[in-house]
């Protein structure tokens, strides 16, 4: 099982690529990512795209509801790698 912590750092880096001005430290990991960081559907799709490329994990549209916070997204990826 990949170390959860380093995976979280990876996800944060990918988010920063999309939203460079995002303030990751003060982000509550359980809060709704798209709401907190003002990511629109295009941003979110680009994020999933880079996660698929970096981790090989492909989040189908049907599972969008399961990955709406930093914590749930990281755990979702960790279980499927």
């Amino acid at each position, binding site marked *: 099982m990949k170390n959860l912590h380093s995976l979280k750092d990876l996800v944060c880096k990918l988010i920063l690529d999309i*939203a*460079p*001005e995002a303030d990751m430290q003060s982000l509550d990991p359980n809060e709704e990512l*798209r*709401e907190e960081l*003002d990511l*629109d*559907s*295009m941003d979110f*799709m*680009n994020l*999933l*795209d880079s*996660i*698929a490329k970096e981790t090989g994990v*492909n*989040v*189908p*549209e*049907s599972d969008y509801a399961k990955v709406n916070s930093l914590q749930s997204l990281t755990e979702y990826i960790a279980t499927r790698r």
Partner: protein
Amino acid sequence: MKILTMPSFGADMAVGTIVKWNVKPGDPVSRGDIIASIETMKGLIDMEVFDDGIIVTLLAAEGEELEIGRPIAELQLKNEEDSNNSSVQIVESGDAHSVDVGSNTAVNQEGASNSSDSQNDVTKESRVLTDVEVKSGDSINTRRPKISPAARNKAEQLGIDWRQLSQGTGPDGALLLDDINIADTQSAEPALDSVKGPKDMMRDAIAANVSRSKRDIPHYYLQLDMVLDNTLNWLSLHNADLPPSNRILSNAVIYSAIARTLSEFPAFNGFYRDGHYQPSDSVHLGNAISLRQGGLMVAAIHNAQNLGLLELMEKIKDQVNRARKGGLRMSEMQDATVTVSNLGDRGTDSIQSIIYPPQVAIIGIGRQRIVPWVIDNVVSSATIISMSLAADHRVSDGHSGARLLNKINKLLQTPEKLV
């Protein structure tokens, strides 16, 4: 001992040459004797001595050209202490305290003391104003916003309403040519560097544009709620086993429906300039992209009416990414024939937009939301968007606007036709 110096015979004499000495060291001289002849540009002039005494040394040779005031001989005054003979010891050249009534230095030598100080050149309020000193404040139209003729001329050429621009950089806030040039470059192609550049300039440009639009264009507004379920269902089927990069977002479908419909409604797709309307034969769909740090840019998707869904999706994705990294091309930002304004998932139910001159219509898309909806007299739920149309009443009217919205809605119900 008195030093004799090269004499000045006139204001425009800078140098003199001793052509002939009439005396040699040891010779006695008395006041008025001619002791040498000096060559000047006007010819030979006699040099006289002004005191009785004895020549001690000659400091300058014949033929030697010297500046005024340079020592040329030394004179031992007759009985040095003889009071009536030695004139008051005029401190020789370079005496500090004697005021320089006028050394023959070049005219533009700006001695600090006497450089003219125009700020206080008229402190004494002479009863009669000799110089026409019209204070700038005297002009009556101080309240009217000021603009230089060159700036106003340029503003009118560019169709910029300079009255809306903020303070100029000229005197009393007058608008100058540079101010107009900045306002112009800034509203025409807000290249990324302008994004990175001062944000207030971008704000000024948006301000200028929307103000002009609100003032010049008689907007009318229409709105229609459209059921999106068919489109969404088709999309989830289509995207089901595709990686994120190949998936199609609902916006692409909506934009495609709008573009195809507009190609059949020329009164909503073109330019209104200098009092007459010019419809465009192709639909360059302006996509209003909000930038993460604030501000807005409109990038045109060229010939959107001919693009398939996949192509359109790629176009939109590419533009948004490039816009956010400042890579938009000039052409993309200037020639949109109509614009779509979309606040995205966290927007409001609906949005009434302001048309971008010289366009004549703008479509606003509210957020997707699930609402109660009556189908065959039975209340159930549906995912809808409210689509608004703001159009220029000089060019079109509500009836054709309504037909436009209804046609878009009809296409959204059969997304598969848009592929």
